[in-house]
């Protein structure tokens, strides 16, 4: 499979008044043409900042401080703003996590969908209008003709999210980055949207990066999964690797904390105790050690290297070192 995107050692920081927040601390991964990968991980671990870096949409005081982002043969880290404007909303489109801040409150929904269609795809006003209405219908918004004339604040949370999805899909991008695209949607509509994304993947070979907290959603859509923690990738592999043979203690914790709908009795959920490290002062060793029940001395001092468990499955944990004690994943 050819790769559409190759991210190498990406590092992104925020230079705040209290110091440098190392939000993304050296992340490398690839996305194949027509492949859907999932990124999961604790809130604040850098998923959105990774995607904003790819889109080059970081705002002050955020800055890419190292690494490269190769998209279709071009390093986006070095691209000019003008080149990025051509790529954004055309070759790469993004569904943002916060629909309210990315929709403009003073323009109608219809106009906001039409604008990029007229700019990038050179549609006429009436063509763009027809397309906007069709897209709204596709993402399940009833009475799209009337709805298109309304403003963002008149839409419910989930409807705003669907507007974002309609905008992102309307340009048939090569790469779609979807940051929590379905969190606000009910599962019947979610199923519809995920179907729409799968269709896009099959019909026009769009590659997808799906960022979500919902392990159920990644299990359904993605063939490969990246698990992030505190700004780095701690494990990546096929979805089967991650669900059936996870090797990083953080991934174990993640899988343990999901409630099971079939549960007969009400059982207390098992969260991962403690908090993620402050990225202002990331620990020298393994970022997970303060919460890891298997932590050893070396974990505090040195960052664990990646161990290749198969050509696509790798994890960064000292337990995988040949000298480490054997530890089983608890239940």
């Amino acid at each position, binding site marked *: 499979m050819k790769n559409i995107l190759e991210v190498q050692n990406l590092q992104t920081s925020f230079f705040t008044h209290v110091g440098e927040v190392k939000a993304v601390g050296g992340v490398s991964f690839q996305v194949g043409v027509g492949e859907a990968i999932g990124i999961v991980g*604790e809130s604040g671990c850098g998923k959105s900042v990774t995607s904003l870096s790819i889109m080059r949409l970081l705002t002050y005081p955020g800055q890419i401080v190292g690494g490269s982002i190769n998209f279709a043969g071009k390093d986006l880290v070095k691209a000019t703003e003008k080149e990025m404007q051509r790529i954004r909303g055309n070759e790469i489109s993004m569904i943002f996590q916060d629909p309210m801040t990315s929709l403009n409150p003073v323009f109608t929904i219809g106009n906001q969908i039409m604008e990029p269609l007229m700019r990038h795809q050179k549609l006429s006003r009436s063509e763009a209008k027809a397309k906007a209405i069709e897209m709204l219908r596709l993402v399940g918004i009833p009475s799209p*003709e009337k709805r298109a004339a309304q403003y963002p604040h008149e839409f419910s949370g989930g409807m705003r999210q669907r507007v974002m999805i309609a905008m992102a899909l309307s340009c048939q991008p090569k790469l779609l980055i979807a940051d929590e695209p379905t969190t606000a949607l009910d599962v019947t509509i979610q199923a519809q949207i995920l179907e729409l994304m799968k269709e896009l993947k099959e019909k026009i070979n769009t590659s997808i990066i799906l960022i979500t907290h919902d392990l159920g959603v990644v299990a359904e859509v993605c063939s490969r999964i990246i698990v992030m923690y505190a700004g780095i990738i701690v494990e990546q592999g096929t979805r089967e690797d991650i669900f059936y043979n996870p090797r990083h203690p953080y991934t174990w914790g993640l899988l343990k904390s999901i409630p099971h709908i079939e549960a007969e009795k009400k059982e207390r959920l098992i969260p991962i105790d403690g908090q993620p490290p402050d990225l202002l002062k990331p620990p020298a060793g393994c970022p997970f050690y303060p919460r890891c029940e298997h932590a050893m001395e070396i974990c505090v001092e040195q960052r664990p290297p990646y161990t290749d468990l198969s050509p696509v499955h790798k994890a960064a944990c000292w337990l995988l070192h040949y000298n480490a004690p054997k530890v089983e994943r608890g239940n």
Partner: protein
Amino acid sequence: MSRNKVLLQVNSLKKYFHISRGFFGGDKTVLKAVDDVSFHINRGETLGLVGESGCGKTTIGRTIIKLYEATAGSIVFDGQDITHLSQTEMLPYRKRMQMIFQDPYASLNSRMTVGDIIGEPIDIHNIAKGQERKEIIQELLNKVGLNSEHANRYPHEFSGGQRQRIGIARALAVQPEFIICDEPISALDVSIQAQVVNLLEDLQNDLGLTYLFIAHDLSMVKHISNRVGVMYLGKLAELTTSKELYKKPLHPYTKALLSAIPVPDPKTADSKQRIILEGDVPSPMNPLSGCRFRTRCPYAGNICSETVPELQEVESGHWVACHLVHKIN
């Protein structure tokens, strides 16, 4: 304090919005966001509310705390009808009821530090000052899984999930009795979701809190709720205990919802039988005759387009609004 068993009673609540434009020009329309909804919540109970995006869940929450004026119906809190209270008369109730908002981005004031955001309700209701205030804020931050140092930072410096926890800390600051949790955990990752849900449960056990828990993650709603109401387009379709709902859903929409839940297991995900709904979601602006689910319902018959199905107690404590409930189950 009075001790009514029922803390909140919502009677035939309606909330309509008036919309005046069409994309191609057009006339005034009424959007029936909430259309004749009744339920109660007992003290110390958690009622879950699930349903399609745009079906009116947030509007119900906002109307209960009177951010919106009800179009019709009544809201009774601890025995007192609060539907038409003035802003000043509402003040004591504002302290007793809090809402955790759905949108963690829009709901926090970006010019205030996190400490002041959490401290604001403490000041408004004169709860504490100086060192005590500071300690309460730090305790709240720790309670929701943030660090005490976070108090001096601003909302935009936090991720979506972190901001949601700031909102929860703020709601807890005035020690309310009743909290409307509007999708409080959808922005959180699963391990923090578990922390927050355990936290909400602990607070409920310790302080006897009552929750209206709005969400669309059905497995979490099942976990946290005693009873669950399923909404469709401004109306309740089904209402029963959470156990019963998941074991024996009776309404066709509930059946579809349950079958569409994504399962965190690749093998099951690939083999699971789903009820894929077809047909358009009707608009709350073009009220449909009869049952609002009929455009997508696989069982719809003649009667379904003629009369609106009323919510009826089909089995003890199990309420369903469907004409054909006995035929299809």
